[in-house]
């Protein structure tokens, strides 16, 4: 009896297996399909060429996107980092830039000397013309160096602005401007403030600010009792030009003094037209 049981069980289990096969047939097919797909994925992953063909376009698209977004994403961070590095490693920055800046300056100076040399050549050509002889006679009588006068002609010295400013208040009596870009009244005030600031900062009550140099601009101050004159000059200032300018300023101030009764405090633009005429021939 004990032997029969397994035969019955085996029959039952066969039937169960058949039933299972019938019921799970579709699942098995699906499983086989999945195994096949996993194999294909594994093959793709393990074969360099196939993987590259799939992934490369994605990486390229991501890189393109990053390239486009880079300035906005990382720009501020990079700028901050560079600023920080420059501030904290100034010596290294100078060391690194020195040769490049040096070369640039050398190149710039040699180019400027070339231009100057051309101008001097032209001036020498002119020197043997009638105008040149007149200039030479002028220097014999005037006492200025001929080389100064030649250099002055070559250096394009231009009077850009003239201000006649009341000493304390900084109010403008009169002005001349070649370009008329900024409000003269405000400039007059700021020039007075700068002058006062220098006197105050360096405790030089009996001395006055005589000039400020700004790249190719020279701001010259001529101080008088009630007012001061500021002349803004661009280009190279030679000794002879400075001498001529000083003489013209003194001549102008003398004329002004003779008519000083006409100067009214707080009244600006009183002789602006005359200023231009007076300094025109300089």
């Amino acid at each position, binding site marked *: 009896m004990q032997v029969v049981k397994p035969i019955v069980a085996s029959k039952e289990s066969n039937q169960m297996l058949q039933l299972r096969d019938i019921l799970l047939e579709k699942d098995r097919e699906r499983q086989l399909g999945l195994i096949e797909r996993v194999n294909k994925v594994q093959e793709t992953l393990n074969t360099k060429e196939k993987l590259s063909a799939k992934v490369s376009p994605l990486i390229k698209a991501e890189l393109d996107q990053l390239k486009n977004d880079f300035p906005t994403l990382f720009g501020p961070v990079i700028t901050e980092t560079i600023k920080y590095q420059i501030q904290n490693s100034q010596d290294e920055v100078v060391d690194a830039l020195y040769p490049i800046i040096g070369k640039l300056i050398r190149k710039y100076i040699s180019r400027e000397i070339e231009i100057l040399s051309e101008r001097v050549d032209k001036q020498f050509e002119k020197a043997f013309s009638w105008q040149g002889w007149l200039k030479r006679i002028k220097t014999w009588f005037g006492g200025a160096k001929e080389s100064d006068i030649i250099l002055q002609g070559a250096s394009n010295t231009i009077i850009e602005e003239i201000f006649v400013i009341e000493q304390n208040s900084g109010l403008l009596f009169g002005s001349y401007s070649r370009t008329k870009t900024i409000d003269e009244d405000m400039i007059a005030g700021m020039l007075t403030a700068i002058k*006062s*600031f220098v006197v105050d900062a360096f405790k030089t009550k009996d001395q006055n600010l005589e000039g400020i140099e700004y790249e190719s601009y020279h701001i010259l101050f001529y101080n008088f009792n009630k007012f001061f004159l500021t002349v803004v000059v661009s280009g190279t200032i030679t000794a002879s030009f400075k001498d001529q300018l000083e003489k013209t300023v003194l001549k102008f101030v003398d004329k002004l003094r003779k008519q000083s009764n*006409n100067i009214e405090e707080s*009244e600006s633009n009183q002789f602006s037209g005359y200023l231009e005429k007076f300094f025109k021939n300089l």
Partner: protein
Amino acid sequence: MNIFNKGNSKLSKKIILLGQFGVGKSSLIEKFVHQEFSEMYITTIGVKIDKKEVQLGGRKYSLLIWDIAGEDTQIKVPTAYKLGAHGAIFVFDLTMPSSFENLEHDIAYMKKIIPPIPFVLVGNKTDLVDEAEMARIKEIVPHNDYIYSSAKTGENVESIFTSLVKKMAK
């Protein structure tokens, strides 16, 4: 030869703006002048100059307003900046008692270093105080003759300058 040509001339007046740091002097000018002439001058040389042209009683005035850097005490400000001024505006902050507690002393000091000139007292920042607070402040402030203003809302900003011009024109 007559070098004067007064056809185009206008009357210029130098006005100095005084008061402690943070009382709103620069904001008042900005509101009045409607332009910004580089604030950085104040931090570099301690003064900023603005210009405004006004017409009053048929006369054109060119106001050069010197906004002098505010300090805890006016003694630290370079005296030269105040010289030659035709008028002064003394600004204090209604929300900052330290700016008006020593008003008498500050005005006395100003009169000592520059000749007597017309001036206007201004209590600024009315937008930040209510009526009850204002009444309390009026009891503390030693002067009665002052203008309340707000650089933020623009309240009385024009009046400050026109009232000073009127005083200077007398």
